[in-house]
């Protein structure tokens, strides 16, 4: 049985851990606000972009359609982009995204497809390397990026577009975590190439007037589609950032509560043991005095 001193030390160490988790929870809560504002602030752009592309895509059809929209006509080569956080201690946040990606990759491999993987974030790179080795062709580390902006997403987009243009990928899918609410983040997949035209995008009311395009529909669409890849990645990164903080906040809240329970249990045990020892000592003294 542990001595009383061991137990005191144990309680002390749990208390110290609780202080850390409590602090981490509060830091995450503060960061969450900022990340959430950024995520909501980024939404109008992505939404307008999707609407405009849907609009343009309706007018361009058949053989004229850019390859980013129509695809290469094959579905053999897949590029899977997995975006996670750079840091752990966020509950199942990172592993959820990796698991979703892993399941998809395994399905594709069983179907005999070629799969190449791009990892964005340290927590995507390490497990994916372990699982798929050299299939991970490139990884990005965003831990040095303080505030997310288009500059952070651009290198990822450039790589994807290069892979596509040079014929190493037919389909590009992005895995990230959709930020549904503070208590719910859903690992999700989003197809980047060929571009998915949202059915829900509202057609712009023209009042019967003819739309004028400068330079022309085709060229506008051709400039927009590559940009859209970067925007989609950026919006996924924003959602991830907000999701990461809320997942960490929740995980640390749980940890703090567990530590509290543990401290309660240990203190009870400690007091009981102390009481037992005092009782034994008293019995010994009384027994001793009676014997005399």
């Amino acid at each position: 049985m542990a001595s009383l001193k061991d137990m005191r030390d144990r309680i002390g160490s749990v208390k110290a851990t609780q202080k850390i988790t409590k602090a981490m929870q509060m830091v995450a809560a503060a960061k969450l606000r900022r990340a959430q504002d950024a995520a909501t602030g980024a939404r109008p752009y992505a939404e307008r972009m999707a609407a405009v592309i849907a609009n343009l895509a309706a007018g361009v059809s058949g053989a004229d359609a850019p390859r980013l929209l129509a695809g290469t006509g094959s579905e053999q080569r897949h590029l899977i982009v997995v975006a996670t956080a750079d840091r752990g201690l966020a509950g199942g946040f990172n592993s959820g995204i990796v698991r979703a990606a892993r399941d998809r990759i395994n399905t594709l491999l069983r179907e005999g497809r070629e799969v190449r993987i791009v990892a964005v974030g340290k927590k995507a790179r390490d497990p994916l390397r372990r699982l798929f080795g050299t299939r991970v062709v490139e990884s990005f580390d965003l831990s040095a990026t303080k505030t997310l902006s288009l500059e952070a997403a651009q290198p990822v987009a450039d790589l994807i577009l290069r892979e596509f243009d040079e014929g190493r990928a037919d389909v590009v899918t992005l895995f990230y975590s959709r930020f549904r609410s503070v208590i719910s983040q859903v690992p999700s997949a989003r197809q980047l190439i060929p571009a998915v035209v949202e059915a829900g995008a509202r057609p712009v009311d023209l009042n019967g007037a003819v739309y004028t395009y400068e330079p022309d529909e085709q060229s506008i669409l051709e400039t927009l589609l590559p940009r859209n890849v970067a925007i989609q990645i950026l919006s996924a990164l924003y959602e991830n950032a907000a999701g990461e903080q809320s997942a960490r906040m929740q995980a640390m809240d749980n940890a703090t509560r567990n530590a509290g329970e543990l401290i309660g249990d240990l203190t009870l045990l400690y007091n009981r043991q102390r009481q037992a020892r005092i009782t034994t000592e008293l019995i010994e003294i009384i027994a001793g005095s009676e014997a005399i």
Partner: protein
Amino acid sequence: MAKLRFSLVAPERELYAGEVDQVIAPGSQGQFGVLAGHAPFMTTLQEGEVIVLDGAKRRVFGIRGGFADVTGEGLTILAEHATEATIQ
């Protein structure tokens, strides 16, 4: 005079949203002005200034990349980079 509904959006956030008299923007085929009731029109943009005129007020934004979309509802400018120029 009828007002034009205008919004200027950058990837990170919305910089301007509201009703204005006129907006002048740097289209890739030349600068253009938009008033309320403009015909539907879409163009890519080049680096330059977006000037927002509303009554006596005048605000200038520097933008780079992006496009403008004029619909029956108003004008939306999606700029890849945008910052407000400080007024002298």
